[in-house]
Each structure stands twice: as C-alpha cells, then as structure tokens.
C-alpha cells in the first residue's frame, strides 16, 4: 500500500490537473476566424519561365504584393483600446 498507492494517486492527480488546466486555457483563448492576418498576407506570384529546351520551370519570384487598405472619413475616430466586439464575415 504506502508508497505505490501514493505514486499512483500523485500521477492521477497530475493527469487530472493537466486535463482541467488545458481545458481552461483553450476555453479562455477562442480562435478569432475573422481577425486580420498580421503582418498582412502577401500574394506570391509564381512565374513560369520557359527554358532554352522549351520546358517550363517554376521560378518563385515574389511579386504583386497587395496589402489590406483602410480608408476612414475624417470624423471617424480610432482608439488604442481593444474593441468589445468586431465586424466580421459570417
């Protein structure tokens, strides 16, 4: 009884605490599907350049980056505070 039981009980306690703790962490950090990518995602265009033998070789040259653009009328104020809610695709 003594030591072996204590070890088993300890292991069970650690497993239970890990389960509860990870569940609480996941619940407190929900994924925000609509959050903009940071830094803004860039579009990578892969050009296909014919070689001298006529075969096509992909050349990974990043081009044509397009950043998200925000335009606001003069009367619209921004703040450093976090939003209580947000607009998003649904």
């Amino acid at each position: 009884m003594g030591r072996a039981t204590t070890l088993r009980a300890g292991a069970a306690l650690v497993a239970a605490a890990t389960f509860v703790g990870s569940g609480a962490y996941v619940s407190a950090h929900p994924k925000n599907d609509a959050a903009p990518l940071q830094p803004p995602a860039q579009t990578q265009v892969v050009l296909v350049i014919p070689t001298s033998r006529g075969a096509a070789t992909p050349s990974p040259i990043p081009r044509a980056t397009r950043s998200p653009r925000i335009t606001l009328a003069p009367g619209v104020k921004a703040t450093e505070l976090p939003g209580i809610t947000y607009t998003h695709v649904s």
Partner: protein
Amino acid sequence: MERRRFESLGSECELYAIGTDADALAAAESWTRRMHDRLTRFEPRSEVSRFNASGGRWVAVSLELAALLRESLRAFEVSDGLVNVAVLPALLATGYTRDFDAGPTAATDPPPVPALPEVLQLRPGEARLAGGAAIDLGGIAKGWLADRLAEQLAENALANLGGDLFARGGGETGEGWPVGFGGKTLLLKDMGAATSGTTKRAWPGGHHIIDPRSGLPAKSDLREVSVLASTAIDAEIYAKVALLLGSRDAPKWLEGRSQGWWLT
C-alpha cells in the same frame, strides 16, 4: 453595462446596452430568435419559405417581412442590381441547399437571376413573388435586425448579429463604442458596420456570395470588405457591392456613400 451573447441566424450574436436591464436583453434575444424562425430559408414552414412557395399569388406578409422586402427592393436600386435577394435559385445551384454545417450538395447549372423588381411586388400587408422566383434575405436581414435591435434596446446600445452591427449612442465613455474594424479599433457612434467576404461559408469550388450578373459564385480579387455606414443594413449593402466590384472600382463606388472601408 449589460451584455448578452447567443447563437441565432446561423451566427454568433452580441447585445450591449447601457441604461437598461438584463431582462431587456433577454427579450431582445427572444425577438431575434423569433425573427430567425420566421426568416430562415432552411425551414419549410418559415414565413420566407412559404412566401417562396406561394407560386405567384398575392399573400399576406408580416410587418417585418414587408419591411425587409421593401429594403430588398431599395438595396437592388442602390446597388444597381448587385444586391439582389432573388439569387436563391442560383445559390441552390451551387450546392448550398441546406444548413452550411451539413455540407454542400451537387452543383448544377445556375438559372439566370431575374431583376428583383420584375418578380417582387408589394402592396399594403401583402406581397407577390413570381412563380419560380425565390429569395434569400441573408445579410439584408441581419443588417436590418441589428438596426432594429439597437433602436429597441436603449439610447446607448450596440447590436452585432454575425458581424453586421449598429452602435447607437456613445458607449461607456460617450465618445463611441469601441469596435474592431480592419485590424484597428474604431469608436462608433450612431453608425453601422458590416463585412462581406468569401472566406466563410465556402467549400471547394464555391462560396455563398453569388454575383447576380453571372449567377455564379463571385470572382473578385477581394476576399473581404468591411464598411461603415449610417445604418447596419446600408453597411451590408455597400460591403457586398464593393466585394463584387473588386479592388479597382470599389473605392470609387464607396466614396461619398461610406464613412470608411477596409479592403483585403
């Protein structure tokens, strides 16, 4: 400040209000759920489904559906036909025939999308939809309901129905309700916001934003557009138009109509 979150209209809904109590928010949630039951196209007994199946007859419509049909006709005019609730047959042809979580069905050739004023007529208390036509109120309903909820809740309230929102009054500080918009936080006061995009309700080879010009899922170089406007329903209309127009023409169209936009 009172707040309440719940699932309805196929989305997450949030209500915030200052100067009212929790019972008012609970009543607002109940009203939203009743409106969902009435306006969903996924329930054959809903008012919208029965209207879609009315086969060209004049039928009595509720005050809310009548108001939404009027707004749908206005949206068609404002958007030069780009926002057209009569896209439902084309949307069904893409395979979006049932609740999104159940997955798409096989796609078929899309029928042409009729001009809404040619298939929808209104008179006091009644409406008529041409046989074969069908409507999906979708985002129009969310925007309109968000406007109504903020109006009913309190002079200082915010209603967000799946991203279509209206902020009434100045929030806790009086300067505006802090709302996430395009990676920033804006202070919105008596203003609506909405986002349209192809990044959700999408599946391999399709998504739910139909371009009425082709009857097919929109082919835009924009993935998401967020827009500010004086109401949530106008923000919803403007966001969809901008998405369909694409990055070259959207800013020109939004200028003079919208108080702000974010294109990506």
